């Protein structure tokens, strides 16, 4: 089976994630886009592991999953505490610090 479709999908997911981070307003959605980028990387790692016939990429994917879970814990805690303060999770409203 050709690896190309998987790599294409991975690149498309990564791009959707990156564009989402740069354009979306809601912190939760921005954060989900970051997770999408991480998972796109996971897909690329696993596809390449299959192509090369070694386990490096698969091991890496496991580590990335654990790290992503830890990131969710920290990230949601920060976003929730901001939301409780401002009653909003919009990244446009977090604008006290500038220039």
């Amino acid at each position: 089976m050709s690896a190309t479709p998987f790599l294409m999908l991975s690149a498309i997911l990564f791009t959707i994630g990156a564009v989402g981070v740069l354009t979306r307003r809601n912190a939760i959605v921005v954060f989900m886009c970051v997770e999408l980028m991480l998972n796109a990387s996971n897909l690329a790692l696993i596809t390449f592991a299959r192509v090369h016939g070694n386990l490096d990429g698969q091991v890496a994917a496991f580590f990335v999953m654990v790290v992503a879970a830890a990131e969710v814990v920290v990230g949601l805690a920060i976003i929730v505490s901001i939301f409780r303060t401002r009653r909003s999770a919009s990244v446009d409203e977090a604008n006290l610090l500038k220039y």
Partner: protein
Amino acid sequence: MSVIAAAAADFQAPDIDWGALAPVIAVLGAAVLGVILEALLPRRLRNVAQIGLALAALVVSLVLLSVLWAKPPVSVGTVGPAGAVGRLTQGMNLSIMVDRPALFLQASIVVVSLLAVLTMVERSRDADPFTPQGSAVPGSDFENASRQAGLVQTEVLPLLLLAVSGMMVFTAAGDLLTLFVALELLSLPLYILCGLARRRRLLSQEASLKYFLLGSFGSALFLFGAALLYGATATVNLAAMSQVLQSGAPLLVVTGVVLVLAGLLFKVGAVPFHAWTPDVYTGAPTPITGFMAAATKIAAFGALLRVLFYGLAPLQDTWQPVLVIVAVATMVVGSVVAIVQADIKRMLAYSSIAHAGFILTALVAVQEAGISSTLFYVLAYGFTTLGAFAVVALVRERDARNNITGEATHLSQWAGLGRRSPVLAGVFTLFMLAMAGIPLTSGFTAKFAVFSAAVSAGYAWLAVVGVVASAAAVFFYIRVIVLMYFSEPAADATTVVAGRPFTAAAVALGAVATILLGVVPAPVLELARTAATAPFGG
């Protein structure tokens, strides 16, 4: 299936040199122990126990590092699970490379963290830089109640130790996977710590959110770049990668290098990935800002050195032009934008961006001088910036009832400080002069080292740009000095808090190091040179 079975049959159990890992384990173990103590100890004992534990762990780690330094580390390190599957000789296949540059950088991180801990241990009601309850909504009854009860957020030090251990691994990582895990281990605690300021909590939370969103975006870019590099070279190990890359670089590799560099330059705070720096440095609790400015910079430059000079060394022609452009942009943007800042923390943040640019000029010189000057610069700058931020934490506002409130960070509030507290203003002047690179301070030696490295690599024009940018930077450093000494004291109530022995000790140690590294830099320069003579496992 058969492919995986074959790879699994090939698997060798990792051979781990625990001795070489001991300095990291000391810090990491203390962090875990600190979290457990938090659950077990009664409230009144926690603060003292955490302080003792943190200081002890860092001192033990420093001793272990010096022991490792004395015994030349020939191929010490671990064969990690990810690295163990390649087809390489045993000695090269390291996930963590405890070599001389790594030891130097780890020791720098530990020393700087020791000073940072000193700036965080004073937790009486006026002095405490951290909120009593990070989860409490600012201004709520819950927050008031926890303030009244005199609660103290003691988890700060275990979080700090976790970040320190991540940084120590970050400088020694021998493969991209370890690099990624270490990057997250150092970042996640910092995201939390940024949001824990006691005063101006909205700013602090905003800093935390911005740092988190942009930081995780940077890590995601890094990870995808690592995946592409793995795709092109069939390994995540830097040593193996550099061998494969000898035979040329397809487009996949170039894309991967750009993404990996973006992730690392984000942590360094280089233009165009600098946008988070001023906001986060301003909003975070000042001791955390000092810690980030000093230790994160050391760790990030350590990782950058290893990735560029070791793993991606064959692609020097590809990344060098990128790095030159980034260095110029970083120096110019940092120095110029700092001139128009009216907030002292924000000004120091832009100054740290400019310093990142100065260090990047040394990375252009891919040789011994480039490594040794980078090692010296990050250490010298670490002491200076940590001391400067510790001073900022001491200059406070007073409210109508003469209570000490938040930090007086607006520059106008620093007017006439030299008359009110000559000693503090004198020390801050020293830090400003060191950052400006005036002779007889560490800043001059460090800048001289990086610029001469750039010149020796044939980038004389880059050194000239650096000198011009430093000259522009002198303006805003001197402006603070002029403001402190030659202007009338501001009418509003700026005050310098007294009776903070630990913070004062941190400031004093930072000042002593700044002077020593300027007047007698030879011993430390010699250490840096020793580290650079046989870098990356020799």
